[in-house]
């Protein structure tokens, strides 16, 4: 009947009664009605089982050892007997300390507090206290703290701080990212000053492509950003540039990119699908956002496509500054590009010395020739790859020399090819060297060697030989600088060696192919570190001059 059931629910059910008899207590007895291996106190084990044990996992069971005298049950295996048998002894253990507990008059002194059992009356209270992901011992104090904080915030001016989600008119600026699996989740807010780049997968279909919000440009520039949190000042997101990617992967930058392009179905394709968004936020040092721009990559999908991969990133720039990416702080980090620059005219006059175009312009980095698939030096488009610290690189191409080529233009072309358009003069010795500290920059030393041996040169001393450069080797010597536990990489010397070879005049109609190589080698010239130990302190005691006055 329901009344008795309700009554039974209301009565608090207590846990099982605690076992205090040491002879009956067995913590290794886990299997019910079965013998546990190596458990000497298990009552389910017979003498035959004991003979198979190797050791006793629980050798002794005692009460609280702080009592003056308590019962102890010891279990051991007598391995000398044949078959081995278990020995069980019930002894009295005496605590010899003078501070052992003789008696207690406080019942709960030496045992754990029994937990409160939930009943239908106190269930709601327990749910409120323990139902969330974390709970503290004093739940009431949490509520009081948050109430006290809110009134004091009213007069504060708000501003964005690092990591705070960027607020928009309705919610937060979203940066879709993969959560658990690789599918896009739109609930990831962008944090202020947190540069993020994410890639995730979105499911699409050509039929419904104009209905899917997340592939349309409007979704990403719809909401306007609040300039400071909890304010009414809005900053609209402008479209900075649109790049259209064709089905075979070729990208073209569109002119006049202010127009919003919604996805449209065209024949069997759906074009203007958003494949990537790049947000650029400009902020002031007071924590206010003043500009927001988004660059889009739009693509097209065919009928068979079921999902596309979208990539998103966000970067922050302080207003009126140009960011100079550091390659380490202070030592170079492996994998970051070498920082290089030029010395402006007018040095060493004490004007402000600023190295021009540091790394913000791609063409003033230290770069080497990038090998292309067709391996023809003269047809190379001028593709260059920046030199990354710690990565030894080698690249090259094949040079086809015909009889018609003249020496001087060929030399100049090869020199341009090997060194690039603007080969810098100085390399920063630390990853964060400032342009104003001239001593922090290492000049590049240029060397020229010839491939021919001395003997050959002696045979033809007077022939005006044409020397063409065919190899550039940049050797960067670096050392470990700083503390033993956290050494920083510091560039000490950069040497660019150009190897030339003699171009022998070819008979007309003949061709020759010579390989042209360029390489970068990083050499660690740090001397082995010796740890220095401090000298033992010495006790410096001297008696005063006239200590033995009457006698000395």
């Amino acid at each position, binding site marked *: 009947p329901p009344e008795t059931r309700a009554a039974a629910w209301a009565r608090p059910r207590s846990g099982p009664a605690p076992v205090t008899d040491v002879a009956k207590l067995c913590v290794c007895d886990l299997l019910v009605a079965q013998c546990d291996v190596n458990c000497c106190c298990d009552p389910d084990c017979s003498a035959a089982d004991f003979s198979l044990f190797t050791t006793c996992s629980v050798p002794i069971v005692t009460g609280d050892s702080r009592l003056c005298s308590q019962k102890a049950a010891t279990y051991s295996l007598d391995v000398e007997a044949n078959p081995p048998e278990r020995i069980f002894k019930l002894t009295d253990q005496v605590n010899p300390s*003078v*501070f052992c*507990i*003789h*008696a*207690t008059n*406080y019942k*709960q002194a030496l045992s754990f507090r029994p937990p409160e059992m939930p009943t239908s009356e106190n269930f709601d209270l327990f749910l409120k206290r323990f139902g969330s992901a974390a709970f503290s011992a004093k739940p009431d104090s949490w509520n009081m703290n948050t109430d006290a904080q809110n009134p004091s915030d009213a007069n504060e001016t708000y501003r964005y701080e690092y990591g705070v989600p960027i607020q928009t008119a309705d919610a937060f600026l979203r940066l879709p990212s993969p959560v658990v699996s690789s599918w896009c989740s739109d609930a990831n807010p962008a944090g202020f000053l947190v540069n993020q780049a994410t890639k995730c997968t979105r499911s699409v279909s050509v039929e419904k492509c104009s209905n899917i919000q997340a592939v349309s440009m409007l979704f990403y520039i719809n909401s306007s950003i609040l300039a400071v949190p909890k304010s009414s000042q809005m900053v609209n997101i402008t479209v900075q540039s649109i790049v259209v990617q064709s089905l075979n992967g070729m990208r073209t930058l569109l002119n006049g990119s202010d127009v919003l392009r919604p996805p449209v179905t065209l024949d069997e394709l759906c074009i203007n699908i958003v494949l990537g968004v790049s947000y650029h936020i400009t902020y002031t040092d007071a924590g206010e956002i003043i500009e927001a721009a988004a660059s889009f990559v739009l693509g097209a999908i065919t009928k068979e496509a079921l999902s596309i991969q979208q990539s998103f990133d966000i970067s922050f720039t302080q207003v009126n500054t140009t960011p100079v990416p550091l390659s380490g702080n202070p030592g170079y980090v492996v994998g970051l590009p070498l920082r290089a620059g030029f010395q402006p005219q007018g040095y060493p006059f004490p004007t402000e010395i600023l190295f021009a175009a540091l790394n913000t312009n791609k063409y003033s980095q230290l770069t080497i020739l990038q090998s292309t698939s067709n391996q023809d030096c003269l047809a190379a488009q001028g593709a260059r790859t920046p030199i990354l610290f710690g990565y030894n690189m080698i690249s090259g191409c094949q040079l086809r020399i015909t009889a018609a080529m003249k020496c001087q233009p060929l030399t100049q072309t090869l020199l341009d090819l090997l060194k690039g358009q603007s080969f810098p003069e100085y390399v920063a010795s630390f990853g964060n060297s400032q342009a104003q500290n001239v001593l922090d920059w290492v000049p590049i030393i240029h060397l020229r060697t010839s491939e021919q041996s001395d003997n050959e040169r002696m045979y033809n001393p007077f022939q005006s030989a044409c020397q063409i450069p065919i190899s550039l080797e940049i050797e960067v010597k670096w050392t470990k600088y700083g503390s033993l536990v956290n050494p920083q990489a510091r560039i000490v010397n950069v040497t660019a060696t150009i190897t030339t070879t003699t171009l022998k005049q070819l008979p007309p109609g003949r061709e020759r192919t010579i390989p042209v190589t360029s390489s970068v080698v990083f050499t660690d010239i740090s001397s082995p570190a010796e740890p220095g130990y401090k000298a033992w302190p010495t006790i410096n005691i001297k008696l005063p001059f006239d200590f033995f006055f009457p006698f000395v």
Partner: protein
Amino acid sequence: LSSLPLQILFYINGIYYIFYFLVTLAMIVYKSQVFGYPDDFLACDLALLFIMAILEVLRLYLGSKGNLTEEEAPLGLSLAVTLGSVVLSVYFLVWQTYVLKADVILNSVLLCAYGFESVLKVTAIAAFVS
């Protein structure tokens, strides 16, 4: 004539009681740190220890004065206060929240001292009355 053994016993009791008081106080502090000691039990034990100290001072003063001036009234009063001290000592021996072995030793010695003193006080009173 004043009882000399009684006076010696009073003097030794005084020194022993100072020692007893300090050690018992230190042990209550130790117990409160090492074991779980609810606040009301702790307050009860400390209060009784201080009451016992006051009673002891009173008892020794009255007894010593009565013995030296050979008057039976202060000695009788001292005997009555001894009863209270005995009860408190038995509390610390048996009914305290945590009774350690050191407590047992200290309180047993104190009770023996009280026993001897009581006997000597009774004989002194008998001597003074007659």
